[in-house]
């Protein structure tokens, strides 16, 4: 019998965010900012240039008082798989500064390779990418809290959510030292997941049936990884970006807000996907 080298099956890290539980408190945003050395400026009210890898959007059902409803939607990088790692941003990057990892399913961003053409920002349908228009400046003394795990970015490069990749690296090293073949579910969690006081974010390997995220999402590989959970949806699912962030809501108008539906289309209806 031919000896075959044994590889771990590829992982596909993803998220399920329960919008019924999300309160819009913003802890995920700040957990991310403080974990990833995200800079800030005196005026952050121009949201087009305000860097926030995790952004919480406020949705409304558009109805008048008193039938108004609101729902918050946290938006990290969706870590699109596309088809075979063909994510919108990865396919346009001329510098290979961003890549799709077949091992983890994480879309990387290598700051030192990025030369700031911002094609990826144009390509990303989720506005998940941010450009450093200025060098980061921390007020005197505050650079003391910067974490050595994530390098601060310089002016002229694009940055985005990495699913706290440095945490994966640490967890992987630790697993290796403990003689474990795989990274345990609890050992690798993103900063936003860990912080969320409402427990609205579940993170893990979508390929691993033992992981909670898999059990919630139950992705259907025959239908482009669409969730089998009737509460679940993905943002702009019909574009075929195949994102790995799933949202859960029991409200139809919220699920409908996740895509641009024509009036006659049913929520969640996937018409023919064009490739």
């Amino acid at each position, binding site marked *: 019998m031919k000896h075959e080298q044994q590889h771990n099956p590829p992982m596909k890290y993803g998220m399920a965010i329960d919008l019924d539980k999300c309160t819009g408190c913003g802890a995920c945003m700040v957990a991310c900012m403080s974990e990833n050395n995200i800079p*800030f400026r005196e005026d952050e009210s121009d949201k087009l240039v305000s860097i926030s890898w995790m952004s919480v959007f406020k949705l409304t059902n558009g109805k008048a008082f008193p039938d108004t409803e609101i729902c918050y939607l946290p938006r990290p990088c969706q870590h699109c798989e596309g088809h075979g790692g063909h994510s919108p941003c990865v396919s346009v990057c001329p510098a290979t500064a961003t890549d799709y990892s077949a091992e983890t399913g994480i879309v990387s961003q290598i700051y030192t390779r990025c030369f700031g053409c911002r094609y990826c920002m144009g390509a990303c349908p989720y506005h998940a990418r941010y450009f450093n228009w200025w060098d980061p400046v921390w007020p005197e003394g505050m650079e003391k809290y*910067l974490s050595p795990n994530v390098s601060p970015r310089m002016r002229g490069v694009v940055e985005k959510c990495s699913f706290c990749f440095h945490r994966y690296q640490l967890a992987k090293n630790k697993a290796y030292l403990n003689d474990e073949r795989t990274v345990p579910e609890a050992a690798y969690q993103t900063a936003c997941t860990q912080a969320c006081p409402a427990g609205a974010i579940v993170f893990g390997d979508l390929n691993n049936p033992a992981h909670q995220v898999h059990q919630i999402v139950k992705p259907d590989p025959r239908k482009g990884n669409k969730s089998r959970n009737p509460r679940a949806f993905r943002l702009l699912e019909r574009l075929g970006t195949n994102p790995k962030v799933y949202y859960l809501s029991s409200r139809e108008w919220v699920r409908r807000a996740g895509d641009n539906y024509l009036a006659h289309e049913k929520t969640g209806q996937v018409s023919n996907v064009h490739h």
Partner: protein
Amino acid sequence: MKVDRRSFLSFVIGGAAGTALSPLPWKLIDDSSIWSQMWPWTPVPPDGEVVYEDSTCSLCPGGCGISVRKVDNRAVKIEGKKGHPVNDGGICILGLSGLQLLYGPTRIKTPMKRIGERGEGKWRKISWDEATVILTEKLTDIRNRGEAHTVAAIAESDSGTVPALLQRFMTAYGSPNFIRTSSQVDADELAVKTLFGATGRAGFDLENADYVLSFGAGLVDGWGSPVRMFRAGSLWKEKNVAVVQVEPRLSNSAAKATRWVPINPGTEADLALGIAAVLVSQNMVDTGGVSGFGSWKSDLLSNYPTQKVSQTTGVAADVIVDLAKGFAKADRPLALCGRGKGLVAGSLRETAAVYALNALAGNINRTGGMWAVPESDYIQWPKAATDKLASAGLRQPRIDGAGAGRYADSRYLPNRLADGVNGEGPYPLQVLLVAGANPCHDLPDSKNVRAAFARIPFIVSFSSFNDETSAMADLLLPDHVYLERYEDVPVGAGLARQVIGLSRPVVSAQFNTRHLGETVIAAARAMGGSIADAFPWPDYETCLEETLGEKWDTLMETGVWVENDIDPVADTVRLAGMDAPAIQAEGDVDRFPLLLVPYDSIRISGGTIGDPPFMIKTVADTVIKGKDGFVEVNPQTASAAGLTEGDMATLSTPRGEVRVRIHLFEGIKPGVAAMARGLGHTAYDGYLAEKGVNVNELIGPVEDPSSGHDAAWGIRAKLAKA
């Protein structure tokens, strides 16, 4: 060769054109952008050994356990502590931003003495010894003149050893004027005293409730212990617990509730009593645990018929009946109150009415119910001996009038401090000590407060930060921030158990600051006599360890001490305290047709701590844009005033006038305008200062007739195009 004008111009223009056609300028631009990217002003955080140190967060009354990640001696990240009885790993947005407070430039770095005009910001650095001398000489001088009572202290809390030391200092010194900042705790304590006849606080077993009726309590907007509330909210979702939010505005709490009941602002007590009347008239009450039901019942039924309540509150009659039925049908229903984060005391009538609902449902002192939790009693110091001067001072009335006459039922009335200082008090105030409070920003009617502070000859601030109050001070004696100090953190915040957390130094003091406990002990020792005798401890840590006694070891080991087995202060609820008239909004209806209500957001710190840069960054551009603040109104209200989204408008109330932008929001009752609390700072730094409007500039205190507590829930207002 002669260079004439023509050949010179030809040379310059030709040269310029030639250079422009060459790759040189483009290459230079490209290179300079690359070079400047390499310049070393992007910091490279040094690596080192990683350790986690546990402590307790005391930025709000929530009492969460935190775990701080350190790289060598630098704290780099604050995370929630797993397994902690309050937050079990969760953490809020403010707790996460703590390191920006620790390392931020808004810290007061050393004791300082004012040398310029007040508020001018000119200071001279002094040593701690010099600071102690200045403080104690001043205080001794006043005391020797027999005017010890003209010194007041204002603090954020009155529980825990540090506030207790300050209180003890005031007693030994001879002043009755220890003031705790206002919050829902005031009304809660009074309601427990009125209903249960004993001192204590209400605790809510929210996790086991099966129907939640919130009268404006910001369940996920920062009420109670915020992280615990977020967790409870998710638990309710999982267990399909009905959560009803009664509030004029679709807050986050209302948005997360299973049902939002919009109500006319300020009529929550009427609705609670209206629901009680339905319960009583339909025989859906459990009177086993209540006393005085007979007489209360007839008053209730005659004063709160459903139709009348519907008219007052703007809530349809069938909705009122529906809420009553839902409440009665549930096994463990809980009614809660305290608007938003509970930053305003509120009225006794409202608090008692809401607590009475819990009593009528028979849901007192049991699983899933409301508990009458005794005050924590671990601080057992012998009474401070008072000498003649102190006794004389202590016999004087308080500057805020609390505890005597028509204010007999209140303990502290910070809302009356400004008027007391401005001439209504029994005597002029000579010294004000401010600890962990920022009255110049947080007290209602800021203009009046600033005028009062200008009249106080000597203000001492113990604040760690350049806040509005320290800007008005004469002497700055900065305290360590919570990550640099030992402190016991007793947690109330609506917990149905007793919890004490321990804060411990995660990093060494970053600046020349000193623990407030040490400062108080040092001042007492320097003053000698009976004052020094009242403080037998050599330092604060000894005091803390001795005070905590057997709890100390548990606290040092696990960081938290919990008593789940509550011995309630009483079991029977006496139905009382609900007869006072409703609290009306200040202002004339004709001149001010709208009602302005403040709202709380978890992303905007509403208490003493100013919003750190990370938090301000998460605030929506419909709350702050540039420096402009927004007021939220229903599109109907706006169009009546000829205003539309983003317009600049003048918002005026009987107390003040500001310029704000309009934000249209369908989720607010027409005729109501809402503004975020906690903005409009003038101190701190450019990341926070001058952003938005301080709603306290527009709202004045309204006294609760039962106690004198501030019960203002809003004010009448007018919007006009600017």
